[in-house]
């Protein structure tokens, strides 16, 4: 039996007929035309232009699904806003934090969203690349005095405002009171990072296999934890000349501290694959005694529906290192997209969500950006454990580098920090390699 080759009458011949000169001309012209059209788009095409709009109609907003306000909170706020503004219909979409940046970028040219939630590390990138609108002219002057300092800097870059702060957050130290009691550890020990190590050793001896759990997955969450330690150990990301400096002094000491907790068997090895939600689950199941996390963990770790340790959760300011105890600025802002054609309606929605009464009402999920809220007994009552700590911590926050290439720089740093955590490189070597890569990114 011999295989037959496809002839002009075979199926293959019908599917892929021999090209004719005319066909080639037509195909070539089509490709040429499409190339010309594309070149116009890249080289100077218009794209969608944003505008104020009528101040009413439909708008679409993009939020994240984890930490801060819950999806349910945001839907409630949105329903209340639409009730008060009958001419505006809002559709809210939710994605995970990890998808928020990329979805915002991908949707930007089409103007899919009018309002987007942006992280504190994105104003430089989104502002310079025209993804979000400059709202400096819309910002009332008195907001700058009425909001906390850390909040005001959140949507700022190069003297301009690219949004309004909404989720004001930093990482706090959570601990399991029952486990500390059993291990005879005084909570006052947790005031310093050295004390945390001492406490963790005692907890391990008392039977907690891995007393510490962190969000050290190769993601931005890792940089948040590292930033908090870098600040405590006296490091900086960039020097005065804007060059990487995290491979010197406190930056190295912070990573050495992190690595040592793994070597000593104090940190749960699952930390290198964990995000904040994983930390919450492990801590809430009683498998870890001490954890850094955002404000939202307090409510959920004390919720019997979500946690096996309700009532055993306490929260403290981040521990101090040799230099201080700055918390990572993990705040987020609401921004208008540059391509929104209904920016006036979007701005009304932002004004509503960031307004003091709305923020005070949902203070259990996320603390308000308004300074006077922290003296309001009703706000303190919503979260009596966290508010006093927040009042101290929110005035002392450390920013991650405000540069347009931050994401690329963060990716390099994440990978190198993980190499050190996994023991593939010494902390100094890992940070030197990261600094060398980061310097190239900052130059380009």
């Amino acid at each position: 039996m011999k295989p037959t080759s496809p002839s002009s009458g075979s199926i293959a011949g019908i599917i892929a007929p021999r090209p004719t000169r005319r066909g080639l001309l037509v195909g070539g012209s089509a490709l040429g035309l499409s190339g010309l059209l594309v070149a116009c788009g890249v080289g100077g095409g218009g794209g969608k232009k944003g505008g104020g709009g009528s101040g009413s109609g439909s708008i679409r907003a993009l939020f994240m699904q984890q930490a801060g306000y819950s999806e349910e909170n945001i839907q409630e706020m949105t329903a209340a806003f639409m009730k008060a503004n009958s001419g505006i219909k809002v559709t809210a979409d939710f994605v995970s934090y990890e998808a928020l940046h990329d979805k915002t970028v991908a949707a930007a040219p089409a103007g899919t969203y009018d309002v987007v939630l942006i992280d504190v590390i994105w104003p430089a990138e989104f502002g310079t690349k025209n993804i979000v609108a400059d709202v400096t002219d819309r910002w009332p002057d008195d907001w700058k005095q009425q909001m906390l300092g850390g909040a005001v800097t959140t949507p700022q870059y190069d003297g301009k405002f690219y949004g309004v702060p909404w989720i004001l957050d930093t990482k706090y130290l959570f601990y399991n009171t029952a486990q500390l009691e059993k291990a005879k550890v005084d909570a006052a020990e947790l005031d310093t990072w050295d004390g945390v190590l001492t406490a963790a050793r005692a907890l391990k001896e008392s039977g907690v296999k891995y007393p510490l759990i962190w969000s050290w997955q190769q993601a931005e969450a890792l940089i948040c934890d590292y930033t908090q330690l870098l600040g405590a150990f006296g490091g900086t990301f960039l020097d005065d000349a804007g060059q990487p400096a995290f491979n010197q002094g406190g930056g190295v000491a912070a990573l050495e501290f992190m690595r040592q907790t793994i070597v000593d068997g104090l940190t749960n090895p699952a930390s290198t694959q964990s995000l904040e939600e994983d930390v919450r689950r492990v801590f809430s199941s009683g498998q870890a005694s001490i954890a850094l996390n955002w404000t939202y963990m307090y409510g959920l770790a004390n919720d019997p529906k979500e946690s096996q340790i309700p009532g055993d959760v306490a929260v403290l300011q981040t521990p101090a290192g040799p230099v201080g105890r700055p918390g990572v600025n993990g705040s987020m802002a609401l921004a208008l997209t540059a391509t929104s054609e209904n920016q006036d309606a979007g701005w009304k929605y932002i004004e509503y969500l960031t307004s003091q009464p709305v923020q005070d009402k949902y203070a259990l999920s996320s603390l308000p950006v308004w300074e006077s809220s922290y003296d309001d007994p009703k706000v303190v009552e919503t979260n009596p454990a966290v508010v006093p700590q927040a009042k101290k911590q929110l005035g002392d926050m450390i920013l991650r580098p405000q540069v347009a290439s931050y994401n690329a720089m963060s990716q390099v740093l994440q990978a190198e920090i993980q190499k050190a955590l996994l023991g593939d490189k010494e902390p100094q070597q890992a940070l030197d390699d990261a600094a060398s890569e980061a310097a190239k990114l900052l130059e380009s």
Partner: protein
Amino acid sequence: MRSTVREADRPWARQGAGQHEGRFALLLLLPAAVVVFGVVIWPVVRTLVVSLYDVDSAMPGSYPFVGLDNYVRVFQDDRFYTVLGHTMYFTLVSTFLELALGIAVALLLNAPLRARWLWRSIVVLPWALPTIVNGALWRWIYNGQYGALNGLLDTLGISETPTQWLGEPFLALNMVIIADVWKNTSIVVFFILAGLQTIPSDLYEAARVDGAGPWRAFWRLTIPMLAPSIAVVLILRTIEAFKVFDIIYVMTGGGPASGTQTIAFYTYLQAFSNQLFGYGAALAYLIVLAVFALAMVYLRILKQNQLAGVE
């Protein structure tokens, strides 16, 4: 008998009917042509053009023309070679395992089993799962704290110490491959099963009469007869594996220590996370070229094997 009909004997035929038919056919093809232009030609050409510019934002605008600079940068980028290595490993190992397992399972399902329809339905289940769901499922199974795999090993008394399956770069890459193989072996099974059912049973009888045992019949008869099916499924799986993205995104996010970053994931990071669309487009074009080259190599090898096997 062949008859000829003159034009005058066909009153229904109008002059120039062939021309009209041609136009009508073109009209019918137009929607498909528009769709192909919109979803294939346009993006392909656009990506090529973008790769020649220093496009560093998602927004349309004027960007400097840099010619082939983005391609030169790719070849000077150490991370490109690292992720290419991960991609090649993922592609070769996952495709090999899927093919080997797929043939084995297909042979079993082709045998006269009781309730064969039930087994076939079970085999198709993993393939029916969306990749994102499959990734999330395996992420839970591998979880070092409360994962089912550690639980199983503990229950069986094999290991009491929980293993961090996604905690070491090389181990994590292999664990992702297992998750991918679990899902995609199904499609290989069905391609091979379809191929098996086209082999006439009298060929096996003839082989038996000629003294060929089952092993010899498998290598000298089944495999050569399956060559076209193997070629198709191999090309499909190789291309899919080379482009792997979603399962990595869900299971590891490219970590730990970038150990599971593949070229498609790296392209995505550069284009969307870093907004380096020109560079990302150059990477994407290299993926296309690599996949095309791989497909050509496979086709050539399998055609040679087919000819050799049949003759």
